[in-house]
């Protein structure tokens, strides 16, 4: 048996060396271009659809899409590891300065779409609308609302416990940042929320849990959940997240979907971003459940 085994091992070694050498060879004879792209989880599926479609138009260009959260993309951009960072929040000034320091280039911002951060509840939950202040009381540290009965919502009769099950995101998420800035006014989140890693998890969990509340991109809507209408303050009209409400500015939690590049993009990267901003790219934005732009670069 050892003879046969020896033969097999020799064969495997040769094959793997061949793979290794050809792999190295490929690097030097590079006629394939790679665009690296990472960041926002809200945008990751959108970015993946773009990459897939772009492949059909330009087969010589390969787009690598990574997720991890807006924080990851921005961090990668700051260290020069990616060419395009997807972000569902703005880059902080300190981050822009750090990027300039590390790579010598100033990050440029491109608005590639709009999104509304929707507040989801289970479709069996009787609640219809909430104000931003009420949301803050539920989610923020020091907020006093822990039970649905405190909001005059009777959920126990439907068979769920009275506890408000808060679903949130992990702190690498741009959605997390956005919600904290615009709803919690930069106060910290109350401990004890379930911090999910992706936009999809949040909605799925809310769909399975009657007493749950969660926030996520409006494109992640499913049959098992419903939107909560949001009012800016007590007494004002509460609006649902939709394309018109975002366009008219009525929905309070609308945000831009951003892509950051290091300096002015050139060559393949420039063509890719131009394509994303073109009607073809924007059609994909709409298909994915987000809101397309009309204009391009914002300074």
């Amino acid at each position, binding site marked *: 048996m050892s003879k046969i085994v020896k033969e097999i091992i020799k064969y495997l070694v040769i094959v793997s060396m061949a793979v290794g050498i050809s792999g190295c060879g490929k690097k030097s004879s590079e006629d394939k271009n790679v665009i690296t792209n990472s960041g926002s989880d809200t945008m990751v599926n959108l970015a993946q659809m773009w990459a897939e479609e772009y492949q059909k138009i330009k087969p010589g260009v390969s787009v690598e899409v990574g997720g*991890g*959260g807006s*924080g*990851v993309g*921005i*961090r990668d951009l*700051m*260290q020069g590891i990616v060419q395009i960072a997807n972000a569902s929040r703005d880059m902080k000034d*300190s*981050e822009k300065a*750090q990027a300039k320091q*590390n790579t010598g280039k100033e990050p440029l911002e491109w608005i590639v779409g709009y999104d509304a951060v929707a507040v989801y509840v289970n479709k069996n939950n009787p609640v219809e609308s909430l104000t931003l202040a009420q949301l803050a009381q539920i989610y923020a540290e020091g907020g006093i609302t822990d039970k649905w009965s405190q909001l005059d919502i009777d959920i126990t009769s439907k068979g*769920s*416990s009275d*506890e408000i*099950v808060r679903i949130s995101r*992990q*702190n*690498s998420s741009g959605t997390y*940042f956005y919600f*904290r*800035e615009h709803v919690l006014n*930069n*106060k*910290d*989140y109350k*401990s*004890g*929320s*379930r*911090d*999910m*890693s992706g936009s999809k998890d949040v909605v799925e*969990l809310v769909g*399975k*849990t*009657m*007493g*749950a509340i969660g926030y996520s991109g409006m494109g992640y809507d499913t049959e098992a959940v419903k939107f909560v209408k949001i009012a800016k303050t007590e007494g004002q009209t509460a609006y649902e997240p939709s394309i018109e409400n975002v366009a008219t500015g009525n929905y309070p939690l609308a945000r831009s979907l951003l892509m950051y590049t290091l300096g002015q993009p050139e060559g393949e990267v420039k063509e890719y971003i131009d394509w994303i901003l073109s009607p073809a790219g924007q059609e994909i934005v709409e298909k994915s459940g987000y809101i397309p732009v009309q204009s391009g670069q914002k300074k």
Partner: protein
Amino acid sequence: MIKKSRIQKDLAQGKGGVTRESQPESSGKLSQFFGKLKRLFHSMSERTIVSLIYLCGVSAIIFVFGIFFFVFREGEPFLKDHLDFKSFFMSPDWYPTSVSNKRYGILALLAGTGSVTILAMLVAVPFSLASAVFIAKFCGKKLQETLKVMIELLAAIPSVVWGFIGLMVLNPLIVKLTGASIGLNILNAGIVVGLMSVPIIVSIAEDAMRAVPDTYLEAAEALGATRWQTIRKVIFPAAKNGLLAAVLLGVGRAVGETMAVLMCTGHSVNIPFDSKAPFFHILDSVRTLTATIASELGEAPRLGALPDGTYPEEALHYQALFMIGIVLFAITFVINLVADITVKGIRKK
């Protein structure tokens, strides 16, 4: 190591084993020259190979130290400048990305790791020890082989698949059976991690029981003990070091598990122990040390030091995560060390 006698050592030293006597009769200066060259080549290549072997042998130490070194290197600034033992280990507030008030307390994370590990051991230990006893003592040869193969296949299941199972299968099951508000909690992760630890505990416990000297067993049988009595009164006490080591290694596995807990615990900064009954809320969601690193590492930027030697505040998150890595490494190192010493203890007997 296998000892050689001095004579053999002398014979083999520096010659590469191709001695003159073993060569066929060669004539002429040229073939003698080539003969010398061949012997030189053999001895040189042997020396290089042997040094390579020595190098690889030491590699394990190099890597373990390397791991400690690199993890320490990235987390060291946090340790030096910002570590306040009390607030790091005793505070449950983990807010590394806060805009207003950054806090780095890992108490809730330690509670998370601890609670999942405790539940996992409660699930795993009784069943693993029972299986080990059953396989070692109560089985026929064929059944033994089958069960051992099944346990080995259990060990092969990757942790992401376990996480998948917890997420897709156990989640709705727990909600249905216990009426919990959410099926991703300590119970879910505890069962999954427990099942993952079973193979390690079973195999080491089995080895420990097998290591009990036959003379003990023969003596017991001569005194008229049944198998069960032998197990209870002779094997368990004799093998208790090995059994303890098995459980410790299971604990080490549970503490270090990442992907399965990432997907099954509900990932919530929360201490599940409090004064309300039932005191240990296994239906609560928690977050473990490992899952925290896995979910936040991608986002924390690695920033260089400022000209004055201090680090900007944003850099602390990255370093704090590596600090957690140091804590994890220390915990598992200690557990492995203790287990190793206990096992050595029984071998010496």
